């Protein structure tokens, strides 16, 4: 064992599997989004609204690009430690900082509209609907601001355990209800008018003795698909619910801290041990499982036309067939690796890599 700290044997990531590519990747454009994501495990995700895509780096620099050709439209330097990604919608782009501030910019020219204080750090991207900007704080609090004036409308508090998994799930803000998953393993629906609880469900029950064994964070973003609400939790379960009657339809024992994707009637999960698994949305049966990416710390899955894409810590994009999960393409997109969730919109995949490069690509 070396003198400079004990060299425990790292749990090595699986090596890349060779396969016969069926599709190839066509990069439409790429742009530089400032000085990258830093090493503070930032899960920055770009946001799309209309034909624009917005992204930020870890020093608070927010930029807007045209979705078509990646041309930079505006660039605002906020000079503050950004801790979460950017949310966009209805003319507003919202960003949160490490020192407990939520900043709203106009999505036209990036000018600052308002700025509001919150009680602690925000690491998830604020979500926006026509009249609210909703931010989820790391201490289990939801805060809703008036989208235009920034005035605080309501807050909801959910008690979270002392030790949680790093990262917070972004809430799903519909027109009149906000659905949010918390580090306590609970899913909550809150009405957008007053912030009162509509319903609350336990997605996972903590087990074991130590604080580590009892973590049941919901860190991935809940997924609304075909009238069902899918929620995953770490060391917990994947559950499917009826969002109106708050009834749990089915559940599968799967541990994941990633967001979900859906397609071909399946719901796709990136598990904690980096397996990728597909479950039938209605019957909950496990359709297929892809284990070749074990220990490569993969990102949330994203459906792209007929394929399912995940990226990993070494910066490889892996495309799998949504039918049976076999590999159909692979492409190295960012040598610093990818951590944040990716976006797919109109058959174009947008990836913001840790080096700060935003890439738009298609499969042919």
């Amino acid at each position, binding site marked *: *064992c070396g003198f*400079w*700290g*004990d060299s*425990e*044997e*790292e*749990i090595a990531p699986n090596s890349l599997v060779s396969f016969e590519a069926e599709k190839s990747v066509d990069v439409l454009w790429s742009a530089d989004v400032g000085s990258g994501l830093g*090493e*503070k*495990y930032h899960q920055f995700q770009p946001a799309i609204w209309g034909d624009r895509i917005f992204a930020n780096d870890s020093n608070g620099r927010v930029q807007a690009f045209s979705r078509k050709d990646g041309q930079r439209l505006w660039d605002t330097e906020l000079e503050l430690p950004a801790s979460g990604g950017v949310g966009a919608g209805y003319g507003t782009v919202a960003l949160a900082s*490490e*020192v*407990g501030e939520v900043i709203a910019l106009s999505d036209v020219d990036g000018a600052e509209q308002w700025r509001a204080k919150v*009680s*602690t*750090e925000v690491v998830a991207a604020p979500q926006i609907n026509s009249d609210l900007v909703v931010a989820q704080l*790391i*201490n289990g609090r939801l805060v809703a601001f008036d989208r235009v004036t920034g005035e605080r409308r309501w807050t909801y508090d959910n008690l*979270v355990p*002392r*030790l*949680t*998994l*790093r*990262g917070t799930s972004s809430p799903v803000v519909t027109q009149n209800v906000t659905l949010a998953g918390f*580090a306590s393993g609970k899913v909550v629906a809150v009405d957008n008018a007053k912030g009162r609880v509509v319903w609350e469900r336990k997605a996972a029950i903590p087990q074991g*003795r*130590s604080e*580590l064994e009892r973590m049941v964070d919901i860190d991935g973003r809940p997924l609304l698909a075909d009238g069902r609400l899918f929620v995953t939790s*770490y060391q917990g379960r994947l559950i499917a619910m009826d969002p109106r009657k708050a009834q749990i339809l089915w559940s599968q024992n799967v541990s994941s*801290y990633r967001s979900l994707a859906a397609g071909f009637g399946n719901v796709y999960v990136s598990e*904690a041990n980096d397996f990728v698994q597909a479950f039938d949305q209605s019957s909950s049966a496990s359709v297929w499982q892809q284990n070749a990416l074990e220990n490569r*710390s993969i990102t949330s899955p994203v459906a792209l036309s007929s394929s399912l894409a995940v990226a990993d810590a070494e910066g490889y994009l892996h495309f799998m067939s949504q039918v049976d999960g076999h590999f159909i393409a692979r492409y190295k997109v960012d040598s610093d690796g990818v951590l944040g969730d990716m976006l797919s919109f109109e058959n174009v995949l947008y990836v913001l890599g840790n080096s700060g490069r935003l890439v738009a690509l298609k499969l042919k």
Partner: protein
Amino acid sequence: EGSFEVTDIRLEGLQRVAPGLVFRHFPISNGEQVDEQRLSAAVRKLFAAGYFEDVKLARENGILILKLRERPSIALIRLDGNKALKKEALLEGLKQTGLKEGDVFKRATLEQIKQDLVRIYASQGRYGAQVDAEVEQLPGNRVAVNIDIKEGKVATIEHINVVGNELFDDEKLRDLFELKLPGFWSFYTNDDRYAREKLSGDLERLRSFYMDQGYINFSVDSTQVSITPDRKNVYITVNITEGEKFSIRSVNLAGEMVVPEEELQKVLTVTEGDTFSRKAMVKSQGALSRKLGDSGYMFANVAPSPEVHDDNTVTLNYFLDPGKRTYVRRIVIRGNTRTADEVLRREMRQMEAGLASNEDIENSKKRLERTGYFSTVNVETIPVPGTSDQVDLEYTVVEQQSGSFSASVGFSQGSGLILGLNVQQDNFLGTGRKIAFGISNSDTTTEYKFSSNDPYYTVDGVSRGYNVYYRERNFDENNVSSYETDEIGAGVKFGYPIDEYQRLSFGANIEQISLKTNNTTPQEIIDFIADEGNDYLGLVVNLGWSDNHLNRGIFPTNGYSQNASLELGLPGSDLTYYRARYSLKLYEPLTESERWVAKAWTRLGYAGDLGSNEYPFFKHFYAGGLRSVRGFESNSLGPKDTPRNGATADPFGGNILLTGGLELIFPTPFAEGNNTRSSLFLDAGNVFDTSCGATSTNCVEGIEFDEIRASVGFGFSWITPMGPLTFVLAKPLNEQTGDETEFFQFALGQTF
């Protein structure tokens, strides 16, 4: 079957468990009437003891047969893959949960082993550890448990984020934390490893940081600790509200004033208008309860309750509940296996069967430390059970070598056989008496000396001491003007305290000195002998005053000590003279822990004749050397004599001594305990002569400040079983031609 009488019990199937053990858990013995119900209860009890996998019962009319199948016991626990945590540590951890080699093996223990080990690793910050274990059969119904461990990486702290701080930036607040971001030293200090206790300690430090600067309403709203999925990095977020800065509107005392209020007010260090500080508030609270303790209220309770007003000011109320007057029943002294009890008890200011007083108890501890016989002294107040107003005191001491012992036998062509035995014991045989005797014989000196001092000739601390010596010295060798003396003398000395810190002393010596010269004896001495002859008998009186406020006998870190003395050659003696000396040592601690201390010292001397004869040169002051201006050879500074017959000029000393210095004492690296001392020093000084002999050539009358020599350097002193060992590395600053300097100086026997 009803009940039957058991005539004998037979055990079958025993391999390793001792029969005695079976009978202890099987509550049936020969000659007892037993029935079905009692038998099954007994079997259940034996089974519950856990030594047997299966217990069957059979009966041959009176004889009871126990068919036993022993559970395997764990012969060996093999661990593999443990690098960071050694096998012993892990086995010890398992033992805590009752699992060790030789125990009985149960299926559940396997699962328990895995969980215990994972928890042990988690407590070391290795949250990613994975453990699996399986069982291997061994002959003789024993099993070995093989455990395979993947330790994974230690979770380091990636990010400490303080939210809500406007007045101080994150950087400043993070410095307060013991938990640190991975820094250069982190691999060594492990300060970047997350531990919940450390975090609560850090929050406490953060709270006192603000509360000590006036922010009474400061609060830590919430903290979040989160860990990355790969369990390698920990993120800590602390959310605070700073609140406003408060100042003190007024301070008042309430409750039973058993001590006059003005006296209590004097002790307070918080005053109106100060910025509020919790530390100051607590300090004054301590001062108040100590003051009450000084007048017998040892169990007094002082409760501070700050009253916050909305004009950013605070009224500080102290509620005093003195409780009952307390008395000391017994004073127990522990640890003095060599020093007699009386030697410690006589230093005590607190009496048994009397009112308890904090001040006296604390002062007694200081006086014990001041004796220098003990390396550490601790005192504990123990309430006497069954009473609410009596305590016992327990003083625990750790004895240390006080004094020195050196013996040397050698031979050098210069001075022939060298024999030296010098013993100086401050606590001779633990009687508290100081004994010193020395026998040394070389051709430059032959000396027999004996001195003793009993610090407690009377119970109040009047000391009485004697000394007697016979000395023949030839000063040729050791760089002083060369002449020879034969001296013989004896004397007595008394000292007595005039208050807690000051002592007066007076003594009388009868001295007979005769001088011999040789061809290199300098002119001054020849002239002196011409005027005064070379044989002197005299009665010399020594008057002294000492004022000692040091906090420790050896290696003090606080306080000062000064003493002045006057030596008089009384009229009627052959040589009449006076020799006055003054010395001062001042220690000022720089840190609360008193490990960094600034020291200033000075040693002054002035001497002269009393009319009828010249001041005796052999009573001159000298300077230079370990206890004077370091970096210069001992006694080498000051005027030189006028050599004869081509000899070189030697230092002649002078009747004015002017030395002093400054020191910075710092904690010795890599050494705990208080038996070492290192310091950086600046020394300065010299000796001068008010009157030079008519024929002297290199002697200048009066003090010349540009003659003052100075040096800087590093000194180290260590209390060894043989006595204090001191060495010094010194660099003279303004040496002049003819100065004899020494870069390295060493001595056994004195500390500085």
